[in-house]
């Protein structure tokens, strides 16, 4: 196939003397020798192209051996190679030849860099599926065994990830061998290998026969769960979830639970943390009966653990735990066995614990119903709303919707308001930012009247915050509020206040007016925009601060689409043209941008009438937009500006002027 191409006409530098068939590999070899990593990386990423050029047979016989033998490169290049090879089956002749890909991947699976190894294992897993059962036993399983008994820990860790993919399709004799290899890795001398084995234990258990799980996996699990290194023990907790799903209740009680109980009281907080973190999964895996007998008491201990990390992880799981309890008797269990511990956590010494709790506690109200919520949870919510840590308060406020459904927000509003006000004025701007983001939600739940009365002034105050991010968020907030409460409300309450700021002595506040107009114009519609906002924007074109002026240009470009032809022609265009001759180069630049945008808009409005004029004009416009703005342009000299002065009248002239302007200043 490759021979179809005639002798190369290009430089034969890489190809060797006329032997065109070697050409692709020779190019690759040459490229991989280059000093520049980026070039080598690019070549490897084009490996499939080379394989296609070679055809399947020569890919197998020439390209792959070359890659296996010679590749020693930066990890980045190896990573790309490992990834490529995972999708290479088609290029070597389909599943029958998939095993050809194993040698290079095998050596990649032994390199030191974890990322490369992991990618090689991922590719190997992918390829294993494409093997026929015979090929799997003939080629893949031996590879796994070689890796599993490698000298260096890297190959043994890589092997751990390959057992579960080849086990299900192997014959019984081979299965026994595979299990044997896995067993020895679980008791490897190197903790790295034991960790790798422990992390794959659950996955491996899932593909094993139930008998083997009981007779082999469980002892391995027990051993790993009592390893001398806590980093191994905590991985066993993860495996516990998968193993528990496979066993019957009795086996579970006898084989797994003793170990799990022990893990929940491990002397290392990392292991206990893991139990807390996986609690919902464990709960589902062991079923309701064991949950009630064993897990609930364990959970209580985790909630009062001496390490805050563990308490916080457990607190995060409170809602899920309660949700997953069997509906029957759930309320009693929560009320008697969980709630007392939650009450303690509300006044925990650690703020992370409190804020973890605050992020889920509101969810309990749906589970417990209206009465319990009012009687038991509400006092906790109120206490958290007054917490000294802003994050706790914020978490409560951000989850108000759960409570709203159950008891209505009115119950809380008395306490809510001071909390919101305090967060709104918090010294940390990130806290202020967070509360702003919940404003639209709060507004929806509290209603327009309440909002106008209590919160509106806050929203306006944010507009003059000294941090830009807050002012920006505040403007977006206004837009969302208008979407919620409608244009009439906007016209009466927001727009006047925003427009007043146009006369503020601080130019930052004047700019805020423009930013508000940018986002509000669309929500408010044409009428308000034209009648109320546009005059203000146009007036600000005469501002003495250049930043305000070029923002006027930007705003005009933004609101252009909302305005009608008359407003654009009669009011916007003259102002923009004036700005187009501003002494400040930025103002000029943005004015030009706006002029062409407005011009386009006008053409669109006009297009039904004069469709024939368009094509040439559009070309001109496009050029304009594509043109990057280099430094030092528009220095204020040259005849271009005079041209602007002479061509105010028609749109066509305006466009010609631009062409002239740019052709002149471009050279």
């Amino acid at each position, binding site marked *: *196939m*490759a021979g*179809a*191409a005639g002798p*190369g006409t*290009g*430089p034969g*530098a*890489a190809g060797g003397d006329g032997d065109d068939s070697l*050409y*692709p590999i020779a*190019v690759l070899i040459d*490229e991989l020798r280059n*000093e*520049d990593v*980026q*070039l080598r990386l*690019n070549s490897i*990423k*084009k490996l*499939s*192209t*080379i*394989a*296609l*050029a070679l*055809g399947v047979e020569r890919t197998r016989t020439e390209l792959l051996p070359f890659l296996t033998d010679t590749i020693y490169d*930066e990890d980045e290049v190896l990573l790309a190679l490992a990834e490529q090879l995972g*999708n290479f089956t*088609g*290029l070597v002749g389909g599943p029958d030849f998939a095993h050809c890909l194993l040698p290079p991947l095998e050596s990649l699976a032994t390199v*030191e860099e*974890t990322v490369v190894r992991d990618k090689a294992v991922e590719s190997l897993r992918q390829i294993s599926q494409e093997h026929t059962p015979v090929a799997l036993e003939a080629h893949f399983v031996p590879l796994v065994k070689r890796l599993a008994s490698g000298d*260096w*820990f890297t190959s043994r860790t890589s092997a751990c990830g390959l057992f579960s993919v080849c086990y299900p399709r192997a014959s019984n004799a081979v299965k026994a061998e595979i299990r044997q290899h896995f067993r020895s890795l679980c008791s490897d001398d*190197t*903790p*790295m290998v034991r*960790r790798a084995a422990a992390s794959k234990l659950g996955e491996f258990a899932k593909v094993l026969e139930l008998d083997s799980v009981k007779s082999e996996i469980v002892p391995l699990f027990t051993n790993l769960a009592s390893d*001398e290194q*806590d*980093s191994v023990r905590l991985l066993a907790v993860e495996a516990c979830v998968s193993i528990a799903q496979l066993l019957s209740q009795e086996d579970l009680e006898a084989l797994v639970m003793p170990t799990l109980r022990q893990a929940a009281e491990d*002397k*290392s*907080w*990392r292991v206990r943390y893991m139990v807390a973190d996986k609690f919902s999964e464990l709960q589902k895996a062991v079923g309701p009966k064991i949950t009630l007998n064993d897990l609930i008491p364990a959970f209580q201990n985790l909630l009062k653990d*001496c*390490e*805050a*990390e563990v308490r916080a992880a457990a607190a995060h799981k409170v809602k899920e735990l309660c949700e997953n309890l069997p509906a029957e008797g759930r309320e009693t269990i929560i009320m008697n066995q969980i709630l007392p511990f939650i009450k303690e956590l509300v006044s925990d010494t650690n703020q992370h614990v409190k804020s973890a709790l605050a992020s889920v506690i509101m969810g309990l109200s749906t589970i417990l119903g209206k009465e319990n919520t009012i009687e038991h949870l509400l006092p906790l919510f109120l206490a958290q709303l007054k917490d000294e840590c802003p994050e706790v308060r914020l978490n409560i406020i951000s989850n108000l919707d759960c409570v709203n459904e159950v008891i209505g927000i009115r119950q809380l509003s008395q306490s809510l308001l001071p909390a919101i006000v305090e967060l709104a004025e918090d010294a940390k701007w990130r806290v202020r930012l967070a509360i702003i983001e919940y404003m639209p939600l709060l507004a929806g739940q509290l209603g327009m009247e309440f909002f106008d009365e209590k919160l509106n002034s806050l929203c306006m105050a944010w507009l003059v915050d000294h941090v830009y991010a807050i002012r920006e968020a505040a403007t977006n907030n206004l837009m969302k509020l208008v979407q919620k409460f409608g244009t009439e409300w906007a016209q009466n309450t927001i727009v006047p206040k925003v427009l007043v700021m146009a006369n503020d002595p601080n130019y930052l506040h004047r700019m805020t007016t423009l930013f508000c107009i940018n986002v509000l114009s669309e929500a408010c519609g044409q009428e308000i925009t034209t009648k109320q906002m546009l005059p203000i924007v146009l007036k600000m074109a005469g501002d003495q601060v250049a930043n305000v002026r070029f923002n006027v240009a930007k705003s005009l470009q933004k609101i252009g689409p909302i305005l009608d032809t008359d407003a654009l022609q009669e009011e916007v265009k003259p102002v923009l043209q004036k700005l187009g001759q501003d002494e400040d180069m930025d103002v000029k630049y943005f004015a030009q941008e706006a002029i062409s945008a407005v011009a386009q808009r006008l053409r669109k409005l006009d297009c039904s009438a004069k469709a024939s004029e368009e094509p040439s004009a559009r070309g001109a416009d496009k050029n304009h937009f594509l043109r990057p703005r280099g430094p030092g342009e528009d220095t204020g000299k040259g005849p271009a500006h005079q041209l602007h002065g002479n061509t105010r009248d028609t749109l066509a002239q305006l466009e010609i002027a631009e062409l002239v302007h740019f052709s002149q200043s471009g050279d």
Partner: protein
Amino acid sequence: MPYKLKKEKEPPKLAKGTAKPSSSGKDGGGENADEPQPQPQPQPQPPSSNKRPSNSTPPPTQLSKIKYSGGPQIVKKERRQSSSRFNLSKNRELQKLPALKDSPTQEREELFIQKLRQCCVLFDFVSDPLSDLKFKEVKRAGLNEMVEYITHSRDVVTEAIYPEAVTMFSVNLFRTLPPSSNPTGAEFDPEEDEPTLEAAWPHLQLVYEFFLRFLESPDFQPNIAKKYIDQKFVLALLDLFDSEDPRERDFLKTILHRIYGKFLGLRAYIRRQINHIFYRFIYETEHHNGIAELLEILGSIINGFALPLKEEHKMFLIRVLLPLHKVKSLSVYHPQLAYCVVQFLEKESSLTEPVIVGLLKFWPKTHSPKEVMFLNELEEILDVIEPSEFSKVMEPLFRQLAKCVSSPHFQVAERALYYWNNEYIMSLISDNAARVLPIMFPALYRNSKSHWNKTIHGLIYNALKLFMEMNQKLFDDCTQQYKAEKQKGRFRMKEREEMWQKIEELARLNPQYPMFRAPPPLPPVYSMETETPTAEDIQLLKRTVETEAVQMLKDIKKEKVLLRRKSELPQDVYTIKALEAHKRAEEFLTASQEAL
């Protein structure tokens, strides 16, 4: 940049030019004089004709990594202290026992044991620091007394004491370390953040002190102790090295060093476990507080390795020490790491090639402070390199240096150009000029015009001048070649595109082509440069080189201390004081001689 700070106190880096014939002595040779060398030289360095002696002790880890003059000092509301869960003893009421020195000699052993057992009671220092004040004082006084007793009395370390002393140590110290707590919210950054101190330190310090004196007692017999100080004990001890409290790590370092020295049977095990810690640090967590201390111990171990080196030790260098260069918090332990590497090379120069190849492999791509550290270490290596080894690695080496010289980060370029002040390196270059110059010249020439930083210009002219003086003819050839190469460069790029084009065409003929849609064509690699030098340029270059380089030589000596901190975090006075108050058990670790 902590490295620079450490540099000031560190024993002189392989003092320049004490043995080399071509040495410049630019450091005035005085560096050695003001360094404390309290311990006797353990062993004469293996004689070597042209290698300079390096330090016999590894550079000690700094107790506080932060320079305390920078940020505002404040007393924080919460003390930066934490403690892991000690299983508090139920009965914490301690009876004050009679003093050892006041009791009859025959009862002393019994009383000593009683006191040791009493000290196994653990107290709460975190949640309620004021609890059990009276009993805490009993324990403190007891520990203090025992420290005195074991230091000054002879024949008190009797056989019955060993299990009791080890148990007391284990009960007090072996614990799961608490989660790292950083008040600023982000993950603890070993390079920047203040450590959280151990709250129970008033007791722990004395326990450590006692145990150290116990190990160092002239009566101490490893043969009896090895029943109690076993692999399990060592493993638990090693776990503690992750402690955030530098004072604790300092004690641990000395204790482990003593154990390594006294228990020959544990040596291989200790080395293996340290390796596991390093692997985990490099490949899994990138987080461990005690790497510098562990390397310091290893430095003293390597120092004592017998020759020829065992294969195991060489593997350690290649598979552990070199990959340690890749971790992002390298600055925390780099002086100790560099010390270990140079120790190896001094022992066996044939390791130079794999080491330099390794360094080049892990060379930082974006982290410029780290790149400066690499350049520091490389210079230390070049200081001790054999000329035969140099010629093996010089090509890849100078290709990297050419990149460093061209670095837009002026500290990197500057550090690389300082190599031209090292006369030994210059003599090596001079001996191999025909191969080195063609690699370096383009980078120097290009940046003599285009680098943004003035200081770099001067240094580059200096380097070019040295090259010119080295071999005028070669210099001219390089200039000519540079011109020719530049013109060829563009042609080659076109050639490459055509090559790929052709392969793409071949690939299209394959029916599978649509299934393996090749990635979109990659953007060509553009060269930033536009001009090619003319003959006049070269004349001009030569003239400028002369003038600029002379001027530069004057300024070159004033090496400024480059200091960069990510942010000015407020520092806690308490932590500063606590760290300053800590007295090291030993300033330098001595070499542990390998058993033959």
